[in-house]
């Protein structure tokens, strides 16, 4: 059970957070021009690295703010 550092509220229990998966996946500028393959990649495919992962979290039971954090998917440790 992790203590996750919300950039606003400080360290809080993992249960207060909502996981949002990979960070930095931008919504396509113009989805209409994408091929079905490209669109499928945006909708469904996310990195799944074993190790360092830049990901989004929301402090859903606290300040409700989304933030980006870097975590190791093997040790589960957050970079600070």
């Amino acid at each position, binding site marked *: 059970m992790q203590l996750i550092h919300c950039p606003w509220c400080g360290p809080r229990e993992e249960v207060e957070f909502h996981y949002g998966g990979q960070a930095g996946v*931008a919504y396509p500028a113009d989805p209409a021009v994408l091929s*079905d393959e490209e669109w499928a990649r945006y*909708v469904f495919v996310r990195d799944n690295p074993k190790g360092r992962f830049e990901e989004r979290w*929301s402090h*859903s039971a606290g300040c409700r703010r*989304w933030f980006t954090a870097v975590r190791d998917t093997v040790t589960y440790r957050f970079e600070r």
Partner: protein
Amino acid sequence: MSRVDGYGRIDRSRTLTFTFDGEQYAGHPGDTLASALLANGVRRVGTSVKLDRPRGITAAWSEDPTGLVQVEEPFPEPMLLATTVDLVDGLVARGLGGRGRLAEVPDTARYDRRYTHCETLVIGAGPAGLLAARTAARRGDRVVLVDDRPAAGGSLLGTERICGRSAFDFVADTVAELRADPDVRILPRTTAFGHYDDGFVLALERRTDHLAQPPRDVSRQRVWRIRAGHVVVATGAHERPIVVEDNDRPGIMLAASARDLLHRYGVLVGREIVVFTTDDAAYDAAADLERAGARVTVVDPRPGAGGSATHHARVVGTSATGSEDGAVTAVTLDDGTVLPCDALLLSGGWNPTAHLFSHVRGALRYDAELGAFRPGEPLDGGTVVGAANGTFDLAGCLAEGRGETPEPVARRTHVLWRTEGEPARQFVDLQRDSTVADIARAVASGMRSVEHVKRYTTIGTAHDQGKTSGVIASGITAELLGVPVESLGTTTFRPPYTPVAFAALAGRQRGRLYDPERTTALHAWHVEAGAVFEDVGQWKRARYYPRPGEDMEAAVLRECAAARTGVGILDGSTLGKIDVQGPDAGVLLDRIYTNMMSSLKPGRVRYGVMCGVDGMVIDDGTVLRIDDERFLVYTTTGGAAPILDHLEEWLQTEWPELRVSLTSVTEQWATFPVVGPRSRDVIGAFAPHVDVSNAAFPFMSWLDTEVDGVPVRLARISFSGELAWEVSVDGWHAAAVWRRLLDLGAPHGITPYGTETMHVLRAEKGYPIIGQDTDGTVTPQDLGTEWAVSKKKPDFVGRRSFARPANLDPLRKQLVGLLPVDPDLKLPEGSQIVELTDALPPPPVPMLGHVTSSYRSAALGRTFALALVKGGHARIGERLTVPVDGALVPVEVTGSVLFDPEGTRRDGEPSVR
């Protein structure tokens, strides 16, 4: 009796009576069941799981692999260790032969949890732990000190001396100092059973089992959730036996455990004792036992070890000749000597109790000198001290407790896993009856991994999780494979360190507190009105209000008829509501909804549909435009939280440039649809100053007003096709306004209705319920709501997915109506639909879709259903078959709108329009 005077910390002034295996015995407060049994000369506790061999007590505390009992009184509890059961008056227990028994009656004991925070958590109140706690406390830390036994002291048993004082005095003084510090919390009888990231430790406190009269309101057990800046693992070590032939008999135990039993409980485990050791510590035990009156023979194969009385030999077997309880009566040495005895104590060295270090991924390293795995790397956010760290001398433990590096001490453990003998009678895991022969078979079968050997032999999977057997299994496997132990490793330690009752982990999350019940401001009214409730997520919603003698069907037909012919009222307060404010509010909603929201005029209402990026419908509802920069979004009841999250996620992570803020107002507003041809009369009476004519108050418009000084919002929204208003009011005034509407509606026969009637009314009109008529695979087009999908907007969430090949398939499932040919037959919701047939072909039978909603309609005078059907829109007019309970029910496909398809009722009766 083998109780000796002058020893033990039990209260001999009081006697307790208990029953074991049907026999009554006496013991004392402070005894465990194990000590009391041994004091009464009971050495055989149970039988082994596989071979039915007699088993006794092997250790004095939680590492015991054999002394398993079933407690029957005061409350049945399966598989406990006699060594950890506090003796209380009236205790009834029996020895186990493998499986425990669960009570047939509910456990009424309380369990709870408690959070606490500290700078330093010390696990274990032995010499190292006590000093670690004292050091931290003197530094000014908030300290929590947990120890699993009733009293502090750990391995200190009173014969040692610390700084010139007896160890007991040292313990008492240190505990007294800690107790006097308000920033120190000492938790005895508390087992730290799990260690997690970021200094998080779970510990089980046994609060009442040792009490003669447990207080009723005090929890029996409590799970402490301790968040510590620094965790000091001072959990000591488990003594390691040496495997010899027939090493499983009662009377054979670990040397230090015998010493523990003597000093804590005044129990002398034998009068004629053989100690077989390859480690110096057993000599302390031998000396103490001798002093207490036993005759002790030490067998030690190490050259030069011990004194002149020591046999330099190995024990290679035991016998139980003439023993009624199967307990050991003699041991055989490798030189042929037979030593008669009534107890054999084994000591092959010590295994650091590194479980809590291992739980947080601390890597263990094999120490060939110790013959054990010990912490092999620094712990992030913690330290391991004393015996848990492989430091076994008292001075070293005290030094590590103080945070100092101890002087190295030469140790003369001779690593000996087993002696010669018949492998099939050399027990490695006594509880699993797993032997050296089993390991040999595993290795011969091709097993090379210690995990495979564990699974093949089941070593280490029993109640004790291999606390004393694990490393021996690794050692013997390595020997058999001819590889070093360190290359083989050991199996992973995982929480819990000792077994924990399910109820303790459930805590207070039981019964009414299992999961929150969410209720609306009218809940008390619903209860009084006799509502039958349904669970919708966490909400309790009134489903229908039966009158005396009515079943659900009768009540719903009555409620529906009222709404269609007179006036009905619903508590719709559970609908999610989100205040959307800011200059870009319209832009955000345009990107989220499939239709245009920015063009909505203040004072007006629009229905909207939302999709996920995959183009599937996730929610629907109405949107009120409050002013240029403000909207009120209604979501479904289930959608309230996820849709707010969905909006926040897009807004914050994708479009942070939009100047919009989102606020949940679900409980701020209570909302009551007032529905039916007479609703205008009720609303007119409720807000007499408001012009409720169609001209002044058209469909899909809203206004704010006041009634008796209370702000009220009225909206012409209809989820039933009838003339209807939604009355919204702040939650404080919800009950009063509801009662006012009922009073004013009474002359018009106003009828409260529940969710079931709401469902029927909307289904008659073909309005889908997201989550009932959809399942995450349905697009707006499938629902027949393409009219709500904007063609003008360049993009919105999900739009691009509509163009994927599978979404263009004409055979997609589409929402249609179904009319059973028999108008009295109600199709079960969930029924599957196949082509029209009077005999099903053999499976697999191609399925066309399923019934999503099905009701008996007062308005239609018959049953009807909604269904998702492959290519359904093109099948209108066709007949299909629905298998129901073995019958094949013919149904006709219709459009989804079955009642008033022209929409003539929306504005009420023509005379008053």
